[in-house]
């Protein structure tokens, strides 16, 4: 082991990590010491900690991750209160240790939101997001029933903006960062992606109402346009998707009420 930590990129860190055995357990912070080097990713630093725990016969820290290249959306926790850590617009699997210094003390805790029950340590249940999509985050098209692709023309600009919204990776950082634990950026991203495309028009109004209602039922909070969500979003989903959703929501609310009043049903 080298004594000159500064030059060889070796750093000693103190980690206060949330440990919670299961949903029922109340949970607590436990302090660990770990030696990392600056080339590691944050999750590789946790792998190293976990290997040392295994050898000592202690249970390693449970955390979710899969692709480890920032696209699957499986990883994510708070580092010193920040979703995915101190570097903006990247998932925690893409965060590297060179952004930290020898002697740092870091607090790691899971996403905190009523709609995301903690399963163990840093692992939470985000199935509420799946159910928001189930409520209407799709275009109803049966396999084999599609028309010739170039029969649908889409303005390049609309298509590009739809892609920007569709880039959401479903990690839940927006919910974790929001003081209201709202899922507005997540829901708005899907509403915007599909609402900008001609294919998404027939179900546009029903979609926004159903998805918003499901979000409320799941226990996500109400959006008050604070903007923390977009600030931490690793996929660069812009805040304007919430405005687009709100606009569609208001329009849909009137349209549906008028339809009901006219006896047409919702």
């Amino acid at each position, binding site marked *: 082991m080298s004594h000159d930590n500064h030059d060889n990129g070796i750093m000693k860190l103190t980690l206060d990590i949330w440990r919670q055995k299961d949903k029922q357990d109340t949970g607590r912070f436990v302090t660990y010491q770990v030696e990392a080097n600056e080339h590691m990713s944050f999750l590789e630093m946790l792998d190293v900690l976990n290997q040392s725990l295994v050898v000592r016969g202690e249970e390693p820290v449970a955390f979710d991750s899969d692709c480890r290249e920032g696209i699957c959306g499986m990883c994510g926790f708070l580092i010193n209160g920040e979703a995915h850590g101190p570097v903006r617009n990247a998932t925690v699997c893409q965060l590297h240790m060179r952004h930290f210094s020898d002697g740092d003390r870091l607090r790691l805790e899971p996403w905190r939101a009523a709609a995301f029950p903690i399963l163990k340590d840093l692992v939470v249940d985000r199935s509420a997001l799946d159910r928001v999509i189930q409520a209407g985050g799709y275009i109803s098209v049966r*396999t084999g029933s599609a028309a010739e692709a170039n029969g649908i023309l889409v*303005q390049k600009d609309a298509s590009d903006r739809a892609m920007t919204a569709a880039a959401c990776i479903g990690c839940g950082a927006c919910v974790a960062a929001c003081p209201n634990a709202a899922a507005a950026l997540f829901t708005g991203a899907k509403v915007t992606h599909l609402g900008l495309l001609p294919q998404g028009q027939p179900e546009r109004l029903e979609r926004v109402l159903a998805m918003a209602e499901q979000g409320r039922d799941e226990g996500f909070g109400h959006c008050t346009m604070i903007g923390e969500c977009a600030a931490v979003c690793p996929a660069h989903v812009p805040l304007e998707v919430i405005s687009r959703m709100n606009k569609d929501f208001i329009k849909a609310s009137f349209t549906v009420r008028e339809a009901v009043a006219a006896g047409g049903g919702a």
Partner: protein
Amino acid sequence: MTMALDSKIPAGPLEKKWSDHKNHMRLVNPANKRKYKVIVVGTGLAGAACSASLGEMGYNVLSFCYQDSPRRAHSIAAQGGINAAKNYQNDGDSVFRLFYDTIKGGDFRAREANVYRLAEVSVNIIDQCVAQGVPFGREYGGTLANRSFGGAQVSRTFYARGQTGQQLLLGAYQALQRQIAAGTVKQRSRCEMQELVVIDGRARGIVTRDMVTGKIESHIADAVVLATGGYGNTFYLSTNAKGCNATAIWRAHRKGAYFANPCYTQIHPTCIPRSGEYQSKLTLMSESLRNDGRIWVPKKKGDNRPPNEIPEDERDYYLERVYPSFGNLAPRDVSSRQAKYACDDGRGVGPGGLGVYLDFADGIKRLGKKVIAERYGNLFEMYERIVGDDPYAVPMRIYPAVHYTMGGLWVDYNLQSSIPGLFVGGEANFSDHGANRLGASALMQGLADGYFVLPFTISDYLAGVKAGQGEVTAAAFVDAERDVKGRVEKLLGAKGDRSPDSFHRELGGIMWEECGMARSRESLTRALTKIPALRDEYWNRVKVVGVGDDLNQQLELAGRVGDFFELAELLCTDALAREESCGGHFRVEYQTPDGEAQRNDAEYAYVAAWEWKGSGQKPELHKEPLVYENIKLATRSYK
């Protein structure tokens, strides 16, 4: 019991096989469909597309994935695009050309009929995805855009920025969510298949472990589909996700499903090199970088000067030197091998000497920084985020990494394995890529299988069996559950001193050294001694902390590593038996005088399908001859 390998390729002319076959398939009465249950394991492109389509048709589907949501399957990481023979660019593309390019790219080791069908349905895939709202790149007139990819002479690749896999997967995921809401599909996430159940010679269900509660459960169905991806993580370090594993296909193999061509593994030349012992996975950098980047190493061994201080005449631009006409654009397998030779020669760069430079200085000089930024800006950012170097100022360091596995469970033309009722789709089967996969073809195959092949062939199979027979209390389920619980107890009870991860890493090291980019009789023989020894050590020395009845990531890993050991051995056995070089399989004994892969069509133009004969027993090789009626075998050349 040995069954004959019948590929069930329909008779008739190549271009009519699939449509004629579909016309003669049996149908299930609409009122009866809901009585049938189908299990689909995996929610990537093939799995999610298959589940959604079967659900729409009216079947009862049980869908499983090990991730916390079906949207996370590793199809999501594909960057480049998806091929389809639309000929929107009017550049002479056609179904036949896409078929031929795929067969040739696979070094003439794939079935003609399967590949033709793949090219044929490629056009339907694009229609389907557009209708779902996949935001493909567009022209200003509103039509779909295309790009050329992987050295193809036509522009047939459709893309959604650098996230094509993500967008196609989200399309399939959304179709799946719609069916979950409709009640036709029941989704079990964080639930991992541990065993296949076969009753009276037919696949009838699976045993799973709930990854949150640890509960071992049996699920019965009328057919089972495995769409669980490839086995690249046998090598430990690969571009696969951390959780990608071979347990589902390996358990099915042990229950009688033949494993085809396991030695066909693809090593991608442009990945970010490992930076240390703790490295957990490797990240791909798109192949497109080689269009404007030049690959080199120092001429002198052990030259550790910073790259910008090494003068031009002390650099070896080895691809340009060895392949003057293709240069830096030489195909994946060829480029990977040359990088290995340079590093083996002691001229590699970066930590451990396992890297080569990909230098953009000339590109920037020629085109300007702005153009380079427009073309590769997002990739440069990604590289800088991971490595911490600025590729505009310092050459990138890259090295090859295991990326994709062309081999997989053997399937017939209907994508049915050697166990009736067990179907296999996507990377998990062996069917369409031969010995090497072309860029932008994995997404095409996953969706072709899931949307346009499996729903038909499974219906045909179901029409021939009575729905809903049997109970999960049957002896075969009881036995399978007992086996699964036994393995869990064995792992938790081993009083060892080494973590599962440390064994996996060591196994990966053996595979990479002895069965990686260049294989030989000697290296494979060594591997076949080392692997069983390490496997025995594993079961004696592994240490799995925690308990079985809660969320235990060590236990999950330990089970997967146990299966990787057995698969690794089969992979090396297959590589040793295939005494030729083809595609991703390079045997140093079989090369042309100038170092290129030398196929042996007279003796090896067959699919090697291996049958499990029991632990410690030699597997039995069954050969399915590859018959080419529509094309002539040719030699690939890139000089």
